[in-house]
C-alpha cells in the first residue's frame, strides 16, 4: 500500500489546525494540488485514540485518491488501523522496532531535534528523519531554531531528511541545498486561503531547486545582507516570488542600481550579486 517514494512536501497538522474542523477537506485540496508529492500528517497532542483514528481515516479517504500519503504521528495502532503510509514517532515515543512490530509495512519516521537524536534514530533503523525546527516558528517559540545545519548533519546519516519548522517557499531551496529530501510545514500549508496556491508555491520552489541541481548551478546571493541560494537563471521577479514578497510592496536595488517594477522580470540574478529589498517603515 505504500507509495514507492517518500513525498517531498509534508503538510503537518497540529491541534490548532484540527480545531478548525475542516482538516479532511483541506487535506483533499492539498492532495489534489500536489498528488504524490504530498504527505498529510495527522498529528494531535489532544485527540484520544478513537477520535484520532476517525480523523486519520477521513484524511486517508481525502488524500489517497490523489496518490498522496497519510502519515500518523505517534500512534502506530492508529496508523495501522487507518492504513497509513507512515508513522512519525517523536522524542519519548515508540522506537522504530516498536512501530514495525505494531504496524508492519508502515514506513517509520523519527522526529529529531539535534544531531545526537538524528544519529540515534538512524541507528535504530528509521526510514526517514523529520528534522527541526530549522527556522523559528510560533508553535515552537521557546525552542531555538537549529538552522539548516541540523538538516546538513542529519543528511550525513544516509536517511531521507524532511526539514520542518518555519519553512516557506522562500527558504525551502535553502533547506534542500542543505541535503533535505523534502520539507514540512504547518502554517504555510494550512493557514492561507489558497491551499492549491500554497502547494504550487512550494513545489515550484522544489522544482527550481531540482533544475538547479541538475545543472549544478545554484547562485549565491546577498539579500538584505543575508546569504541566500537560488537556482541559476532566476530573475528578480522569481526571487521576489520565492521570498513571498509582493513586487508592488518593495523597492528593489540590484548591485546598487534600482530596478523598476517593470524591469524585474528581465533582470537575471547572478552569482555573488547583492540585492536590497526595502519598503517604508515608521520614521521621523
Amino acid at each position, binding site marked *: 500500500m505504500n507509495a514507492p517514494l517518500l513525498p517531498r512536501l509534508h503538510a503537518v497538522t497540529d491541534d490548532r489546525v484540527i480545531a478548525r474542523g475542516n482538516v479532511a477537506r483541506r487535506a483533499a485540496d492539498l492532495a489534489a494540488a500536489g498528488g504524490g508529492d504530498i504527505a498529510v500528517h495527522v498529528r494531535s497532542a489532544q485527540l484520544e485514540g478513537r477520535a484520532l483514528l476517525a480523523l486519520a481515516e477521513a484524511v486517508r479517504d481525502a488524500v489517497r485518491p490523489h496518490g498522496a500519503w497519510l502519515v500518523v504521528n505517534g500512534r502506530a495502532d492508529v496508523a495501522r488501523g487507518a492504513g497509513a503510509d507512515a508513522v512519525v514517532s517523536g522524542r519519548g515515543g515508540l522506537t522504530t522496532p516498536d512501530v514495525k512490530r505494531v504496524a508492519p509495512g508502515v514506513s517509520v519516521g523519527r522526529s529529531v531535534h539535534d544531531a545526537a537524536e538524528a544519529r540515534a534514530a538512524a541507528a535504530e533503523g528509521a526510514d526517514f528523519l523529520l528534522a527541526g525546527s530549522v527556522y523559528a516558528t510560533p508553535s515552537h517559540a521557546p525552542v531555538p531554531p537549529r538552522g539548516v545545519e541540523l538538516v546538513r548533519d542529519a543528511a550525513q546519516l544516509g536517511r531521507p531528511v524532511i526539514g520542518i519548522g518555519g519553512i516557506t517557499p522562500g*527558504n525551502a531551496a535553502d533547506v534542500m541545498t542543505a541535503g533535505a529530501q523534502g520539507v514540512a510545514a504547518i502554517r504555510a500549508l494550512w493557514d492561507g486561503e489558497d491551499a492549491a496556491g500554497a502547494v504550487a508555491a512550494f513545489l515550484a520552489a522544489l522544482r527550481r531547486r531540482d533544475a538547479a541541481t541538475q545543472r549544478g548551478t545554484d547562485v549565491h546571493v546577498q539579500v538584505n545582507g543575508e546569504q541566500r541560494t537560488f537556482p541559476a537563471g532566476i530573475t528578480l521577479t522569481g526571487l521576489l516570488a520565492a521570498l513571498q514578497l509582493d513586487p508592488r*510592496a518593495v*523597492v528593489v536595488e540590484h548591485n546598487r542600481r*534600482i530596478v523598476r517594477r517593470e524591469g524585474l522580470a528581465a533582470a537575471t540574478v547572478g552569482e555573488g550579486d547583492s540585492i536590497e529589498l*526595502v*519598503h517604508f517603515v*515608521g*520614521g*521621523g
Partner: protein
Amino acid sequence: MTNIAAAPAFTDTPLVIGDRTLHSRLMVGTGKYQSNDAMVRAIDASGAEVVTVAVRRVNLDRSKDESILHHLDPSRLFLLSNTAGCYTAEDAMRYARLGREAGFNDFVKLEVIGDQQTLLPDVAGLLEATRQLVKEGFKVMAYTNEDLITALRLEDAGAVAVMPLASPIGSGMGLINPYHIRVIKSRLTVPVVVDAGVGTASDACVTMEQGVDGILMNTAIAEAKDPVAMAHAMRLATESGRAAYLAGRMPRREIAVPSSPTQGMLG
C-alpha cells in the same frame, strides 16, 4: 482658515511647498509609536497632511504585516520619505532614490547626519546631496541646523523648503535659538519648516510664533504618555502660535503699563 472653524477672525493662507498646497502647518513623523493603532489615531488627531516615513530593509522572514503602508492611506496622507540614519551624501542620495521609487512623490526630507551623539547635520554633505538630488528632479526639504548661511545656500541649491532644527532630534529641548530661526525665516523665500526638538505644546507654539511656515515633529507626540492627546495639543499649539504670529504681538517693554484707566480713581 481651515482648522479652527469656530474662530472666524483668524484667516491664513495655505502653505505651499514645491507644487503641494497644505492646509495644516503641522507635519508629523511615524516612528517610535507603541502600536500602529496609536500612530494612526495620533496622526488623525494632529490634523497633519504630511507624514514622514523611513526607508528600511524588508524583513525576509516575516514581511506580511510590516510595511507601514498597511496602516497609512497614501491617498489621504502625503508620504514624505526621509533619509534618516544616513551619514554621507552618497548614502542619503541612495535612500532618497529608493524612497522615490516607491512611487508616491518626488519629495524627500533630506538628512545627512554628521554626529551620532547629537544627530546634528553635516551641512557640507547636505549641500552636496541637495544639489545632486535637485538635478535629478527631487523636491528637497533639507533638514539643517539654525545657521542662516547654510539655509541660504540650501535655497540657492534648489531646496523647496529649509528645515532648521529647534533643538537636536528627539531631545525635546524645545526652541533653543528663536533669534536664528527668525533670521532664517526673514531671509529665505522658500518655506521654513522647523524640524526636530520640540517637547511639548508650548514649544510648538513658541516656534510658530517666530513666523515660520510650519513645524515637523515625531518624538514629542510618539513618546508622550498619551500620544493621541498630545497630537491634539500640538495641533492646537501650532494653530495658536501661527494665529498669534499673524495677529502681531504687542511690543515688549521693560516697564509696567496699567491696563485699567488711571483716571476716575477715587479721591
